[in-house]
């Protein structure tokens, strides 16, 4: 079935009243779980698995895809409003988004995230429909060596969040790398730095650390510095995006989407790397007056780009699942097990054997995407009003919210102890001007880079030149080098010339 015929069949099925109902329910549930930190789409779909005994396959998968897309939309809301990212893909959104909210621009931040998610979702779904099989064959050519080089490239992006003092920034980064080491080493099965606590065997959850540093740390810091102070109500500001906001968002939306989709398709890509790269690119590409807003009052580019990258990557994750039966994320793995409970074997032959189901599913992704933007845009005004809550109550609420969400990750008291211990560290980091974002970046990239490097070296039998003799890997490394040295060389050349 060619894509056009497939899509028209798919839309004919997806637009039936029953399937629209499943899509709406999925979008609604997804938005709700996306908003809560800790409870992600994977867990939600796992909880919904028993419905596969009752509901026919098409309806169930439309529901699951609605949850999946909805969670990506909802994840940005708490990142922006409460500095509490719901999942790892929206951690970067919190960097600029929360600063915009604090400076009376919560409305535009939420709106650019919602519309950016729509743009990215549409581009991503178009990618699934027309490019999927080709992109996935290309992505298979990437091995651990290339992934390691990609992570080296991502490490360059740390420089965008280091803040004024490189020493402080790098200290934060190494703290993150240290936290990332905790747990069982994948290549040897040996526990590292778990201090004999079984709950630490699986490592420290990165969303937990982000919530602890961003939300708990800030709340504790505020409580510490503002004892007895008058509570100020934050300005809500205008809700809609101005013409200038639109103009500043369009580029980042498109660039973020184009960056995110291929990363999602890569079997070891994920949503975190493209959000980092998008943030870095937008910071470098922004005009000088917008660059001043990065890290201070919050730049809209820094929300629009990463949020689009996150959503496009999420769409990309569906490509290897549908075309090859490869589960490359937790959510995809659970969806695959749902396929199996219907007696459908997801694999390279899925498109041929279950064409109608797959195209209906893809069509329902378009539908879900439209539903989500329609659901979410009117909510922007409502969400932004949360900020009118007086600060003590608002921050108390954030603490409750962060605590419940963290407990939801694994029902473990150890996680709560970690949340507040790291939150306390976050409080001191804020007090002494250590940036917290490098901690999270180090934690995400460190373990991924380590595993990719060791996998590559096992394959090459310990030959380090594998990173430069494989052409794609070499190209990525050169790009990283250019990104690191380029601006400095350019600056020196200009100074010499003046």
């Amino acid at each position, binding site marked *: 079935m060619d894509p056009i015929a497939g899509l028209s069949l798919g839309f004919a099925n997806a637009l039936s009243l029953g399937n629209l109902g499943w899509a709406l329910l999925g979008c609604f549930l997804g938005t709700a779980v996306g908003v809560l930190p800790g409870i992600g789409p994977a867990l939600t779909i796992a909880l919904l698995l028993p419905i596969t005994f009752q509901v026919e396959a098409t309806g169930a998968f439309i529901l699951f895809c609605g949850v999946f897309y909805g969670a990506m939309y909802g994840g940005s809301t708490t990142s922006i409003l409460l500095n509490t990212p719901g999942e790892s893909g929206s951690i970067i959104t919190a960097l600029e988004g929360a600063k915009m909210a604090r400076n009376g621009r919560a409305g535009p931040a939420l709106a650019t995230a919602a519309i950016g998610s729509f743009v990215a979702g549409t581009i991503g779904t178009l990618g699934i429909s027309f490019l999927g099989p080709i992109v996935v064959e290309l992505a298979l050519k990437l091995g651990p060596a290339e992934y390691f080089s990609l992570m080296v490239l991502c490490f360059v992006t740390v420089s965008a969040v280091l803040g004024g003092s490189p020493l402080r920034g790098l200290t934060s980064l190494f703290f993150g790398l240290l936290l990332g080491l905790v747990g*069982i080493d*994948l*290549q040897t*099965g040996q*526990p590292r730095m778990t201090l004999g606590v*079984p709950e630490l065997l699986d490592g420290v959850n990165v969303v937990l650390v982000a919530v602890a540093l961003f939300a708990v740390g800030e709340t504790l810091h505020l409580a510490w510095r503002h004892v007895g102070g008058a509570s100020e109500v934050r300005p809500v500001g205008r809700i809609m995006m101005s013409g200038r906001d639109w103009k500043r968002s369009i580029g980042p939306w498109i660039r973020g989407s184009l960056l995110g989709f291929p990363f999602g398709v890569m079997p*070891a890509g994920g949503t975190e790397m493209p959000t980092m790269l998008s943030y870095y690119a937008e910071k470098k590409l922004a005009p000088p007056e917008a660059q001043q807003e990065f890290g201070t009052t919050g730049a809209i580019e820094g929300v629009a780009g990463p949020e689009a990258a996150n959503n496009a990557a999420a769409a990309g994750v569906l490509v290897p699942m549908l075309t090859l039966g490869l589960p490359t994320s937790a959510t995809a*793995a659970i969806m695959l097990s749902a396929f199996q409970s219907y007696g459908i074997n997801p694999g390279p032959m899925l498109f041929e054997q279950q064409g109608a189901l797959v195209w209906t599913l893809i069509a329902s992704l378009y539908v879900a995407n439209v539903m989500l933007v329609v659901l979410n845009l009117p909510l922007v005004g409502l969400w932004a009003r949360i900020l009118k809550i007086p600060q003590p109550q608002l921050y108390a609420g954030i603490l409750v919210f962060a605590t419940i969400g963290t407990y939801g990750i*694994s029902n473990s008291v150890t996680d709560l102890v970690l949340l507040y211990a790291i939150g306390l560290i976050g409080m001191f980091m804020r007090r002494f001007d250590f940036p917290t974002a490098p901690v999270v970046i180090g934690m995400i990239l460190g373990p991924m880079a380590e595993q990719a490097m060791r*996998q590559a070296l096992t394959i090459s039998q310990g030959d380090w030149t594998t990173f430069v003799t494989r052409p794609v890997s070499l190209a990525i490394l050169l790009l990283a080098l250019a990104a690191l040295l380029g601006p400095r060389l350019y600056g020196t050349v200009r100074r010499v010339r003046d």
Partner: protein
Amino acid sequence: MPDRRSLLAAASLLLAAGGRPAAAQARFNSLYMFIPAGPGGGWDGLGRAIEQVARQAGLVSTFQFENVGGAGGTVGLPRFVGQRRGRPDSLMVAGSIMVGATFTNRTPVGIKDLVPVARLTEEAGVVVVPAQSEIQDLKGLLEALKANPGGVAIAGGSAGGTDHITLGLILKALGRSAKEGSYVAFAGGGPAQAAILGAQVKAGISGLSEFAEQIKAGRMRALATTGAERTDPAIPTLKENGLDVVMTNWRGVFAAPGIRPDARQKLVDFITELHALPAWQEMLKTRDWADAFLTGDAFTAFLAEDQAKTEAVLKEVGLA
């Protein structure tokens, strides 16, 4: 929120059962089922399958589930042992993955602290090469492994798991040391499959169900399965090729430590009755699980043998 989670599952299953009248005498009013893995995986699947069949047959009125995932089950294991000690109405799902994990993690609490009830299912592993590989059959792979084990990178699941042990046993059977193998561990089936499909590695080892679709589509070539007998009539076993290696990924249920012998017998009787139900045989067929029912002393003896085999390989690789 395990309670709400299990309520949700229980509610939907109540709908599924349609309030069917109890056919048999209920053996347990309520049974607590502990899954040391996240929802959606193999252990979770077995636990929920037991619930589905037992409730429909009226063997158990209600189930309470708790999932504590991570580290091959060794995060949940100490919690089950600590909190359910002496409780006769508790079951935990576990399997061969946990055997390896308790050795590599050196956890103070091990399978020895559990009371074996029954082994229920098993899945054979499969050795594959990418479709474009120059290796045509098992003989070719074994020759390459014998000549230079380090040069044959083999992908599979986490280090110390069933796939890794299988490679170690193959190398030992070839007269090489398990340590010489070039094993590339991947987190989960997706990335490992991608590395094999993209020919980043020379070969791969994993559960047959993980690779079955890729084999059917001709993107991977199956060289051998690791069970005692052929699972797929078209794929020979390692044993047929003269290698004395049998390694399967088995799953079963265990009781909490400190329960009385009669309480254990009651659980064994319950699982035996469950296994005899036509609904269970139906379940095995739809899930594509091989029946590996074993209970009592035979199961205990099997466990001891499995642990010794696993420990020997892991010691040789230097992981235990």
